[in-house]
């Protein structure tokens, strides 16, 4: 399942996509996220997978900003930490 969390508004599209078929449930993404945006949940199909917590879903543009400097390299921790490559960001 490709779970898209986030939103689209006047300033752009901000989605974190988690491909639960690629996910190996290791939980590394949760550990490296400095803003506690990602948390492991048990979804409707009883898979243990990461999800963007409710509180951040409508403001990930700002919650994720510390990991996305406007200039310079962008090694977004959750994307780097995910060995199977299950996490992508749309912006």
């Amino acid at each position, binding site marked *: 399942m*490709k779970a*898209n969390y986030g*939103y689209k508004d006047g300033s752009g599209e901000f989605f974190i996509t988690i491909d639960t078929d690629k996910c190996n449930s290791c939980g590394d993404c949760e550990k490296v996220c400095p803003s506690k945006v990602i948390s492991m949940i048990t979804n409707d199909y009883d898979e243990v997978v990461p999800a963007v917590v409710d509180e951040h*879903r409508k403001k990930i543009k700002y919650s994720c900003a510390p990991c996305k400097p406007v200039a310079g390299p962008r090694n977004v921790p959750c994307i780097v930490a995910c060995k199977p490559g299950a996490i992508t960001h749309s912006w």
Partner: protein
Amino acid sequence: MVEYWRWKEYRWTSPDIDWKTAKIISCGIDVGSVSTQAVIMTDGQLYAYSNMRTGSNSPDSARNGLDWALKETDIKQENIHFIVATGYGRVNIPFANKAITEIACHARGANFMYGPTVRTVLDMGGQDCKAIRCDDKGKVTAFLMNDKCAAGTGRGMEVFADLLQVHIEEVGDLSLQVDKEPPPVSSTCVVFAKSEASALLRKGVPKNEVLAAYCSAMSHRVFSLLERLGVEKDFVITGGISKNTGIVKRLEKEMGLTPLTPRYDPQIAGGVGAALFAKSLVEKQRAGA
């Protein structure tokens, strides 16, 4: 004062089914931000449902919805084997046995209501808009939700019904009564769209054209969500807005794809999915016992 956004509540019971012979009576309650549906299913067949407004207290409206669905049947709440709650208010319903997200429920409900060929479900609810992709069993393969703003939701349509003093059920048909499609209003915010519409009205633009401008903005907005997720045939629309022909027809044109016509009330898809999940959970329990 006439409240133009106020739609009619209703309930339904199947005349052909005798619930007493059923092995499993399951119930799904979809407590949305605007409307609440309670669906009763007997052995996986639709038996009764109710659809009413949620109001300010979601446990109460879940209770009222269930009571009303059961009202003209002689099923008691004790007869129901399992209740699954879904929707925006799912977490605080004391009498539900389990809560499941509306995304999974809508996919499963659409699979039952429209058949296993459904691959893309667009749920246009009262307060959010969800694009869902699913497989032939109704399992979600991808989803995308927009609940940050009211553009592309039933609430946005209610605001316009009120502004233009047109009953919400008539908005769709009226918006199609235009010779030429007017340019859409702002598609990113209902408040901005409303002020644009007020400006149009001041200029003397007739109501139907203003509605057309809003409907096309809304369908453009949800189309961009669908595009992001990717659309595959067959395509269906569930939720309250699926009853608005103005949106459905414009979306159809923009996508070049005709949504399947519903055999049931498209607004109860979430409740139906929840009731089907409830049935599976009872079967699982019985198999384990």
